[in-house]
């Protein structure tokens, strides 16, 4: 039996009972799609279609459709890849690390955050797959499969291969973690279903869940062990992504600070995206009693912490570049801040280091409009961070004769738009057909932290 201090603010407001939780969340799955949802879905599918056309052009004509040149051989594709993977860090962090720390405020947001994680990783995966030019052969280039080239295997020394394993493991583990959490909630919808079709669909999705105490006991063990496994996994994914850069010898990439700095940046951008989506979902679905200002404030505090870690990392990079005495390293950073891409560096510094510091003011971090705007600013900043790291380190090559600039083509932009279409299409489908809040978990805390208990 657990009890909690009465001084703490209730996590679920509005005097909700256990039955109210079922009603409020299941109703969204059962009702007919609203006009607003239809509109949102149309826009997402439109973006997806426009993007799909540019993906078609890319595959038809080849990767030359991107604005890459022989100096800047990595640009938007890897920037977008790292950006999406970073966004995909919040969900599993919320459900795994916050579960181990027994942070109950995670319960109202973990379902949607995990869904967002899975969709963001799907979007990220588009880039490594598409950049191969012939995705139908990519499976042989990415995975160690027996092949007809004299069993020529993949190279396990390559951080790019580690990435394949890290991202696919992260995707699969996040997926099963999310799905196991969904099973009891699908059972709730199955038992409320009035027509045969939804009864059989949600019946199959719920895997025959009956709520037996024995199954719940195993379920809790599984959730705890999965959280224990997913915690180092979350930290490993962006560590390995950062090694794509850190194990190279390019000035500006060849730094040992990359793994922790990338992980902090990933959590930073992930929480920002969760905030962007949750603020809208909360408003549209009228979930103000479940996702309270207190929840938003907690997430904003995580943003201040990770944003500050990122800021310290930027300054450390500058200091170490100077202190190392390596001219190439010093030039790389001087060029970042004052070279032709100074505007990208300035955008990164303002959005990632300065703007989250506004959350030190309680009035700002408890203000929904300010949080919404800042969450978008943070994600713009995090996109610029990757762009700065990647393009500014490459565009001044070892030979001044091959110095170049990078100009994106409409195919670069189009493929990015494609992933946005994909992300929002998935998210809106999720918001309509899946319970957006983990009902079973929220029900378990109603008695101790609901308003009536206080």
């Amino acid at each position, binding site marked *: *039996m*657990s009890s909690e201090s009465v001084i703490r603010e209730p996590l679920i407001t509005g005097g909700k009972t*256990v*039955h109210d939780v*079922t009603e409020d969340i299941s109703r969204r799955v059962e009702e007919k799609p609203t006009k607003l949802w239809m509109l949102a879905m149309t826009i997402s599918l439109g973006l997806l279609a426009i993007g799909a056309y540019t993906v078609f052009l890319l595959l038809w004509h080849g990767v030359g459709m991107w604005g890459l040149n022989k100096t800047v051989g990595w640009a938007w594709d890897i920037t977008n890849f790292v950006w999406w993977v970073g966004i995909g860090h919040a969900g599993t962090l919320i459900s795994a690390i916050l579960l181990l720390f027994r942070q109950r405020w995670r319960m109202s947001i973990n379902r949607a955050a995990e869904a967002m994680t899975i969709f963001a990783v799907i979007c990220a995966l588009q880039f490594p797959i598409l950049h191969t030019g012939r995705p139908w052969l990519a499976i042989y280039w990415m995975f*160690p499969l027996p092949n007809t080239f*004299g*069993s*020529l*295997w*993949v*190279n*396990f*020394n390559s951080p790019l*291969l*580690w990435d394949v*394993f*890290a991202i696919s*493991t992260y995707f*699969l*583990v996040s997926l*099963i*973690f999310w799905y*196991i959490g969904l*099973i*009891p909630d699908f059972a*709730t919808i*199955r*038992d*409320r279903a009035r027509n045969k079709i939804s009864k059989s669909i949600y019946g*199959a*999705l719920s*895997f*025959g*869940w*009956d*709520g*037996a*105490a*024995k*199954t*719940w*006991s*195993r*379920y809790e*063990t*599984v959730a*705890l*062990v*999965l959280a224990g*496994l*997913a915690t180092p*996994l979350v930290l*490993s994914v962006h560590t*390995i992504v950062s*090694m794509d850069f850190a194990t190279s010898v390019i000035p500006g990439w060849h730094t040992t600070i990359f793994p922790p700095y990338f992980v902090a940046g990933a959590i930073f951008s992930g929480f920002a995206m969760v905030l962007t989506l949750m603020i809208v979902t909360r408003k549209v679905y009228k979930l103000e009693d479940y996702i309270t200002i207190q929840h938003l404030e907690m997430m904003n505090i995580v943003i201040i912490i990770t944003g500050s870690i990122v800021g310290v990392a930027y300054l450390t990079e500058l200091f170490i570049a100077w202190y190392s005495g390596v001219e190439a390293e010093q030039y790389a950073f001087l060029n970042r801040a004052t070279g032709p891409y100074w505007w990208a560096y300035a955008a990164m510094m303002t959005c990632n280091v300065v703007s989250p510091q506004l959350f030190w003011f309680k009035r700002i971090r408890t203000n929904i409009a300010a949080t919404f705007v800042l969450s978008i600013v943070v994600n713009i900043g995090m996109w610029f961070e990757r762009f700065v790291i990647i393009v500014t380190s490459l565009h001044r090559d070892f030979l001044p004769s091959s110095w170049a600039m990078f100009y994106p083509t409409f195919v670069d932009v189009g493929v990015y738009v494609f992933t946005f279409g994909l992300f929002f299409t998935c998210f809106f489908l999720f918001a309509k057909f899946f319970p957006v809040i983990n009902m*079973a*978990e929220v*029900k*378990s805390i109603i008695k101790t932290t609901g308003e009536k208990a206080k």
Partner: protein
Amino acid sequence: MSNTKFILGVYEDEDILLNAITNIRTAGVKIHEVYSPFPVHGIDDVLGYKRSKLSIVAFLFGVLGTSLALIMQIGMMGVDWPMIIGGKDFIPYPSFVPVIFELTVLLAAYGMCFTFFIVSDLKPWAKPRIFDLRITDDKHVMAIDLDQNKIDVAKIDKILKDNGASEVNQKTFDEA
């Protein structure tokens, strides 16, 4: 199996339920199972369930993942097609760490989850016994199998009611 008849005690509150389980078990009534809409803290202890061994399963699958990752990488890089890459050894152990870690986590997670599905009989085509549709909403239901108990129905009924059950129902499953 033929007909299986159950007496169902419906409870509204988890603390009353936990008390009821203890009292009913001391009265000598065998409880078939208790069904809840959410995990009730401490219910395994009062029902006398042992701690799940799934964490051991996860560990064993993790060991399997570590071994497979090692065997795969040594076999491919060191035995089947040795190549000098960046002046490193044919079997560069430090380079193997990330893939070993990922496969350990992957196999531990999937091995444990699929074991959980199998032992708890969770599968898309499962036909569960649904004792009460409100179990997945807000009611806790205690099911007592009449075949397992040689006590009079009316007596069980009274024990359940005395221990805070808000209603007592009967349900028969016709199973082949």
